[in-house]
């Protein structure tokens, strides 16, 4: 080891060591000369013989260097320097090549960064592979109301399970609640808080930054009001005050004692509710929640010996027993569907991410093909130079090494650019929350990403340098000296390689274009979905009537708020709902009154709304009437949506029919159009609307319908609200469009990325075609000149040159189309109402590719047709 270090030092100290040797050799010669003189020779002769005896100093130097240093390293460094010089001299080529490489490698780094953070890395909890998610539904069910479990079931599992060391839960319906943070002299801030069991943080293994988790009293009925705050809230609102724990903060007018602060790298929303920022954890009082129905999302930690399968089996058995033993569970949907927590968190995005990764790898292949072609072309023009080097003594291995070093240097430049671009892109994506994805916050360029990038670099460098290196290996360099420097046309193998590479590029570009085209069409279909409500010119903000309003006063508060808003000029309408579309929901059971056993009961999404809701939201009333203020008192009434009405009363109009809710009988007074509540790509399901004021709801969303841009009204509305009650937060005032945006955000993201990659592929493939034809034309300039001189029509020449290119394009298109069909099964799950083999898309993308390639081939072919025969024949270079 030490010896190696000494050698390394010798490499670095090349010049001083060379000087020392020269001094030694000089001394050697001098001393030998003196001895010769002493032996009687003439001075000149003495010196001459001395020099002869010592030999060629250059040889001595070389041997010395080889002996003392690391010859391989030195020649590598030499090659690097040389490569750098050649590349910087040839600016045009280098710029193009580095740009292409940069884009390809950058794109790969971005996608790998996403895949790594979202899928490959384990969840940020203790021993995350032991954690499972237990939901109350068939796999694939999406109604959160049907996926949450009852307290009874939860406790049953907890008691009986041996496979699970412990279970914890939170309430997933927190999204419609708003906690107004007031009382510290700053603007009231609307926060999201989620109810959790006392062992939630402990089960996940999340260490608190400060304080502790909830105590048993705090999760008991009438226990002390406690709260745990997020790291973000602690740093931004409370300036990282270490004394926050133990202090009380005012939420919805009620003082809650802060008992803990979460660590920086725990983000509840990131793992369990992407798209929402959760700042508060509140105690989930199971006794209270027991009466609320299906309100728990359950997480469990398996014992070391348990498996997901064994856990699932056991829980299913326990659930069956529970259903038999506990009559309260009759009529309720009770399942125990157990999956690894990781699957729950990133399941929805896995398919899309794998697809994206596949696509970006294809882009990289195209990049490599393109560059390999460029390098091959370049190597031809440098044949003389290599030949000279070979003549000066460079062996085949050395030349190959040099070629590969050059491709490595080029790739390194490209990687530098690419990683820079990727870093910027990822920062942009994460900081602007451009897309709703789970675990997005932890996307970054870290060690594993860089390692993969490094491996990719080596691979790419090898691939693109392989062509020229193999050329050298075959020819050995010297042969080129003898040829005319016009270069040979007849090098079949090279010609076929180049053509093959271009065909591959076109095929891959075709596949990518089709994939992107399908996603774009799909997205278009989604956007055209009939939402059922009108998001334009409407905005919302959340309101919570804090404890300062006594129960009797809440109704009055509702009325005052509505009146205040409606009185503003520029506001066409205002209304409330406890749940906005595409923003969380819950459902209750509903049945006809003449169906006492509930055999035909349905589960309907519930909206507690104020009067004027349908008009404000632009929801069509199909039969009957809207809800009015009078409905607050008097008989209970309900408005159903079309689906609910048709399901329960398929034979007639349900107006004035009687239905039963858990709360008692109610009368149907209206039917409205279906609204997409869960997601744009899901059918609406049954919905029912009840008067909000009947239920004394304190937490709701307020919607205003404005004349013009709702953002322009923000100031006015804020002023009016403040006058009414300054403690109502207003910071979350947002146009309703954002609901739609959030619902389609991940779809839009993947579509844009894939479209971008397809665009890159198209450009690269056309460059490929352009290059190939251009090169072939250049090589055959003399021949074309002769033909033109002999009278061939330029049009004919043009046609012929183009035909060469179009044959390649045709082959590529054919392969690409077939490839796309074969790959279509992978993309099917991402599409909405578009077949994976949609002929229109295939034809369209094929046509685009063909047209672009046609143009790319036309330009150099035209040049060929325009060749001046005289100059072509004259220049013999």
């Amino acid at each position, binding site marked *: 080891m030490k*010896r190696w270090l*000494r*050698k390394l030092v*010798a490499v670095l100290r090349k010049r001083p060591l060379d000087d*020392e*040797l020269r*001094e*030694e*050799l000089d*001394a*050697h010669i*001098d*001393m*030998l000369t*003196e*001895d010769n003189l002493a032996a009687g020779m003439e001075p000149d002769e003495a010196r001459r013989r001395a020099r002869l*005896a*010592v*030999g*060629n*100093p250059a*040889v*001595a130097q070389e*041997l*010395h260097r*080889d*002996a*003392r240093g690391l010859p391989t390293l030195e020649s590598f460094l030499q090659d690097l320097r040389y490569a750098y010089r050649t590349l910087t001299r040839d600016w045009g080529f280098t710029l193009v090549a580095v740009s292409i490489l940069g884009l390809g490698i950058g794109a790969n780094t971005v996608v790998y960064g996403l895949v790594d953070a979202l899928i490959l890395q384990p969840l940020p909890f203790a021993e995350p592979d032991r954690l499972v998610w237990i939901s109350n539904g068939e796999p694939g069910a999406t109604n959160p109301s049907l996926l949450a479990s009852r307290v009874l079931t939860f406790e049953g599992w907890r008691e009986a399970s041996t496979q699970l060391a412990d279970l914890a839960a939170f309430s997933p319906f927190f999204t419609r609640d708003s906690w107004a943070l007031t009382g510290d002299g700053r603007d009231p801030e609307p926060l999201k808080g989620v109810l959790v069991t006392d062992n939630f943080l402990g089960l996940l293994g999340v260490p608190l930054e400060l304080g502790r988790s909830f105590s048993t009293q705090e999760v008991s009925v009438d226990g002390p009001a406690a709260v745990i705050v997020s790291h973000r809230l602690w740093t931004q609102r409370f300036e990282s005050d270490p004394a926050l724990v133990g202090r009380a903060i005012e939420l919805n007018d009620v003082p809650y004692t802060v008992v803990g602060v979460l660590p920086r790298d725990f983000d509840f929303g990131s793992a369990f509710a992407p798209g929402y920022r959760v700042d508060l954890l509140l105690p989930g009082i199971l006794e209270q929640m027991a009466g609320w129905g299906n309100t728990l999302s359950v997480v469990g930690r398996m014992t070391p010996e348990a498996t997901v399968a064994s856990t699932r089996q056991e829980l299913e058995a326990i659930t069956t027993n529970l259903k038999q033993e506990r009559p309260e569970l009759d009529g309720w949907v009770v399942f125990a569907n157990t999956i690894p927590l990781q699957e729950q968190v990133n399941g929805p995005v896995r398919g899309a991410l794998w697809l994206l990764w596949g696509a970006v790898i294809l882009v990289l292949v195209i990049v490599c093909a393109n560059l390999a072609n460029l390098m091959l072309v370049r190597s031809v023009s440098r044949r003389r130079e290599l030949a000279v080097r070979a003549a000066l003594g460079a062996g085949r291995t050395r030349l190959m090494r040099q070629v590969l070093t050059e491709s490595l240097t080029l790739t390194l430049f490209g990687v530098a650019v690419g990683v820079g671009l990727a870093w910027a892109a990822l920062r942009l994506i994460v900081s602007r929350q451009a897309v709703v994805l789970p675990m997005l916050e932890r996307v970054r360029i870290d060690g594993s990403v860089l390692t993969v990038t490094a491996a990719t670099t080596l691979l790419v460098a090898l691939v693109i340098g392989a062509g020229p290196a193999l050329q050298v290996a075959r020819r050995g360099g010297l042969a080129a000296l003898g040829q005319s420097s016009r270069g040979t046309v007849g090098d079949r193998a090279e010609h076929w390689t180049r053509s093959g590479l271009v065909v591959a590029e076109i095929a891959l570009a075709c596949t990518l274009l089709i994939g992107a085209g399908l996603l774009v069409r799909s997205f278009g279909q989604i956007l055209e979905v009939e939402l059922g409500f009108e998001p334009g010119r409407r905005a919302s903000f959340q309101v919570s009537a804090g404890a300062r309003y006594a129960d009797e006063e809440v109704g009055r508060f509702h009325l005052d708020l509505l009146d205040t808003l409606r009185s503003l000029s520029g506001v066409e309408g205002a209304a409330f709902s406890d749940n906005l579309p595409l923003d969380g929901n819950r459902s209750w059971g509903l049945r006809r009154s003449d169906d006492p056993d509930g055999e035909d009961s349905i589960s309907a999404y519930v909206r507690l709304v104020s009067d004027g809701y349908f008009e404000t939201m632009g929801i069509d009333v199909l039969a009957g009437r809207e809800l009015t203020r009078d409905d607050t008192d008097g008989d209970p009434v309900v408005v159903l949506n079309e689906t609910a009405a048709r399901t329960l009363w398929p034979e007639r109009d349900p107006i004035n029919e009687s239905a039963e809710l858990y709360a008692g009988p109610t009368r149907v007074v209206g039917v409205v159009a279906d609204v997409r509540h869960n997601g744009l790509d899901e059918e609406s399901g049954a919905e029912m609307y009840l008067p909000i004021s009947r239920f004394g709801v304190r937490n709701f969303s307020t919607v205003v319908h404005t004349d013009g841009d709702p953002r322009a009204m923000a100031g006015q509305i804020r002023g009016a609200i403040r006058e009414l009650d300054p403690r109502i937060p207003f910071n979350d005032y947002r146009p309703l469009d954002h609901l739609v945006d959030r619902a389609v955000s991940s779809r839009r993201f993947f579509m844009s990325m894939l479209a971008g990659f397809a665009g890159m592929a198209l450009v690269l493939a056309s460059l490929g075609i352009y290059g190939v034809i251009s090169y072939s034309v250049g090589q055959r300039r003399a021949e074309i000149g002769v033909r033109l001189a002999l009278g061939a029509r330029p049009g004919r020449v043009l046609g012929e040159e183009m035909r060469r290119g179009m044959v390649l394009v045709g082959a590529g298109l054919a392969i690409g189309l077939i490839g796309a069909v074969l790959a279509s099964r992978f993309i099917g799950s991402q599409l909405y109402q578009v077949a994976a083999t949609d002929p229109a898309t295939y034809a369209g993308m094929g046509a685009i590719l063909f047209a672009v390639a046609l143009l790319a081939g036309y330009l150099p072919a035209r040049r060929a047709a325009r060749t001046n025969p005289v100059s072509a024949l004259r220049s013999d270079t």
Partner: protein
Amino acid sequence: MTDKIDLLPGTLDLLVLRTLHTLGPQHGYGIARRIEQVSERRVLLNQGTIYASLVRLQQDGWIDAEWGVSDNNRRAKFYSITSKGRQKLTRESEAWWRLADVIESFLEPRETDR
């Protein structure tokens, strides 16, 4: 004069070590001169190449080097054998004798002629 003998690789190292062991610290020229003398000019030695051997021996730790002044006031680099070098010398010498014995028992006895 008969043809000079090409030295087998590695044997030059042995000669150098032996020379330094016998003569004590020497500069490059001194070592080359000694080798020529002892071998009665039977060894083909491109004198300049001795420095490659010397630097290798130095890196391996068998010899040390130091700049000094020669007899006639020349600045020259003097090489000296280390204790490790002496051990190596003993080992190598023994190995050579053993080898020579084995080879000799195979070859026909030669006439002593020059």
